[in-house]
């Protein structure tokens, strides 16, 4: 029981640390998503804004920790949701406030945009054979369950509470047994689609594109392996995943996210040189990413109907941000919402 709580506490601690170091995950010419001179970060004004941000994040983290401890004391796992949602919500607010403060020090944005005339490779980053792997894993798991169908009990547990007692059940039916695999296949398809869209319709450094492509591929493998294992182990009565296995999953995710942060930081600080502003920042030109400060709402959301890009590189944090001025972004969001909704509907069948 104690081990399970500790395993659950680790991601929360990891999340709080990530939010604390967030201001460092941006290009030198951008400070809380505002265009600034490259040496602004070392000034007293910048340090004051960062200090205010970190005090707020520390306060929100402390509140979340208190919520977590209450959840432990009261044996109320529902409180955990609040404990996990509180730090990111508080950090979002802190970023918006810091963005507003940073706007006072913004340099006039330049309208100069540069682009290389070199064609980008049309293929999806990562070999198609590599992307077939997660689907293969799910297929093998499906075939394995099919071959052992008669060994599956009429009703089997699929969810356990913190007291290690089952509190959710499924029946031996196609929907009951194969739904997790179908959901994961849909998630893998979504990740592949996201990877393709970032390769095709994004503006950002080549390094960041590669990083996102590799991250999505590794996550697809990890999640496919996890779902395949659960889909086989649970119907065949191998019981709860247990704290050790959950710990392994949490550790694997932490390693992946940690690697993304390290490589993402390097991609932000040291982008590839000499390939034009589309792939490298040009502080002298202002924005450095061909976007204007006014298009970054609260420093978090990009909205520019005149920009053809579906994704642009985040100004704060690692990865890409949707251009909400592009109708495709809303279609994409619709799909993102559709998958969990479909998952819930399918599990109710």
């Amino acid at each position, binding site marked *: 029981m104690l081990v399970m709580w500790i395993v659950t506490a680790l991601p929360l601690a990891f999340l709080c640390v990530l939010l604390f170091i967030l201001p460092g995950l941006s290009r030198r010419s951008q400070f809380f998503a505002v265009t600034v001179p490259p040496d602004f970060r070392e000034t007293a004004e910048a340090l004051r804004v960062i200090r205010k941000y970190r005090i707020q994040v520390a306060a929100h983290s402390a509140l979340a920790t208190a919520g977590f401890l209450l959840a432990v004391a009261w044996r109320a796992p529902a409180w955990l949701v609040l404990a996990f949602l509180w730090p990111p919500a508080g950090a979002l607010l802190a970023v918006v406030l810091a963005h507003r403060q940073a706007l006072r020090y913004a340099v006039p944005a*330049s*309208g*100069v*945009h*540069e*682009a*290389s*005339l*070199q*064609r*980008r490779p049309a293929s999806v980053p990562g070999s198609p054979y590599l992307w077939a792997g997660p689907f293969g894993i799910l297929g093998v798991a499906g075939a394995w369950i099919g071959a052992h169908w008669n060994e599956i009990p009429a009703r089997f547990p699929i969810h356990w509470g913190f007291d290690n007692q089952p509190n959710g059940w499924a029946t031996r039916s196609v929907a009951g047994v194969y739904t997790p695999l179908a959901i994961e296949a849909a998630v893998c398809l979504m990740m592949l689609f996201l990877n393709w869209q970032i390769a*095709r*319709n*994004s*503006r950002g450094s080549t390094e960041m594109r590669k990083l996102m492509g590799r991250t999505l591929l590794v996550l697809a493998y990890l999640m496919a392996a996890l779902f395949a294992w659960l889909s086989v182990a649970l119907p065949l009565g191998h019981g709860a995943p247990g704290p050790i296995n959950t710990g392994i999953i949490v550790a694997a995710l932490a390693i992946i996210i940690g690697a993304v942060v390290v490589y993402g930081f390097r991609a932000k600080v040291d982008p590839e040189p000499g390939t*034009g502003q*589309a792939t490298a920042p040009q502080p002298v030109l202002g924005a450095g990413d*061909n*976007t204007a400060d006014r298009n970054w709402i609260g420093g978090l959301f990009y909205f*520019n109907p*005149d*920009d*053809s*890009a579906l994704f642009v590189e985040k100004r704060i944090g690692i990865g890409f941000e949707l251009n909400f001025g592009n109708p495709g972004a809303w279609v994409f969001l619709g799909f993102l919402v559709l998958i969990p909704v479909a998952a819930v509907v399918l599990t109710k069948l």
Partner: protein
Amino acid sequence: MAQPVQAVIRIDTDSVTPAYRQIADSIRTLLVNGVLHPGDLLPPVRQLAIDLAVHFNTVAEAYRRLAEEGWLDLKRRRGAQVIARATPLTAPPESELKFLQRLRELVAATRAEGLPLETIASSLHSIAEGLPCS
């Protein structure tokens, strides 16, 4: 097999000159200066529009203008390819007048921005020297 194009174009969205004309002018300059050669493939409209943070139609219009001038062959899905363009043997009579008019306007605007006359003159001279003779 077309070689990868190692060139960069730049536009200023704050300029009064429409973006499609800036794109067309930039690419035409590379064509005239021999940086782009027949057979070279330009990036698809989508890619260039995304990289320049402009609308697809802006780049499509620039490519269309260059195609009308005989510089590009527009291929569906493959983008634009540079083609051999025969320089007209005799320019229309109004061409020289138009050129001088635009040049005077450009020089006047540049002087108004504060660039010394000597710099403008030497820049025009070096541009003229760099132009191919044929």
